[in-house]
């Protein structure tokens, strides 16, 4: 199955980027990769993906900031943003929780640790 939809996977964990990308590619999606928020913003401007799978805790520009910048930019606000957020029970005292993620303008949320089958369902539901 081929799919012309381009999905940008953004995380500072190279293993997560690779594993998610491999699964998306196996389902026929085109995939681009970035490893922090600043690099992701450059890729968005250059390649205009249809969807972002976006981690929260990243160097230089975190996922909340990037998500809000995208959604406030008329050129890019239509890009679907799926925010990777650790469930609150797993990180009870950090500022990067699922509850905080809900205050962003993301279209949907993917809980971490990632279940790749669940991720694929969320991706397909949002495209």
């Amino acid at each position, binding site marked *: 199955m081929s799919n012309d939809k381009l999905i940008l996977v953004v995380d500072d964990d190279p*293993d*997560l980027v*690779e594993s998610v990308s491999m699964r998306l590619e196996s389902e026929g999606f085109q995939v681009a990769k970035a*490893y922090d928020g600043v*690099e992701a913003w450059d890729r968005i401007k250059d390649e205009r993906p249809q969807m972002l799978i976006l981690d929260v805790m990243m*160097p*230089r520009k975190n996922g909340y900031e990037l998500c809000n910048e995208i959604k406030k930019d008329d050129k890019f606000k239509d890009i679907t943003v799926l925010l990777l957020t650790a469930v609150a029970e797993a*990180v009870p005292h*950090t500022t990067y929780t699922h509850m905080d993620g809900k205050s962003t303008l993301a279209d949907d949320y993917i809980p971490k640790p990632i279940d790749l089958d669940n991720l694929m369902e969320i991706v397909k539901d949002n495209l």
Partner: protein
Amino acid sequence: MNNIKGLKISGELCLVRLHTESRDSGLLPAFCSLLAGSQINMPFLSTESQADGIHTTCCVDGAHQALIKRLLSAEPVLKERAEYTDGVGLLTLFPHQSRLQLFGRSLRALAQADLRVFAMASSIGALTYVLDYAQLDKAAAVMQACFEITGNHAPFKAEFTVAQGTQRRPERKE
């Protein structure tokens, strides 16, 4: 292909080596359970089976060494099999994507720069070396000379660290 997307260097870590005989296959899970029970992260873990037994190498935050020694003091079998090396750090190159050339070139460059490699491991996305912490900046410079780091990459040193569970600070080394 001599490009990589980035590299990371860690904070100061402690290397823990655990040597168990093949018949003691339950000791490694017991060791991992002890660390997990105390929410001690292992940013590096490799294990290999050799003729004389199972050799496990892991790295933990240097500040956790005292706690690990205390945990193992209640486990005599584990305690006598554990060795510690202070002052190590991780150099991680990514993406790796099973490129043997990346491994070969980087290892040769480290050797030519007379940088001691304590351990290495590859994963689906990265290639990681355990090096002398005091030599990490030099190692990063060696890698920059060896590979073209493409694009607008992030700083090599982490801006934050992620720990399990609570925000409790680890105990300082004695």
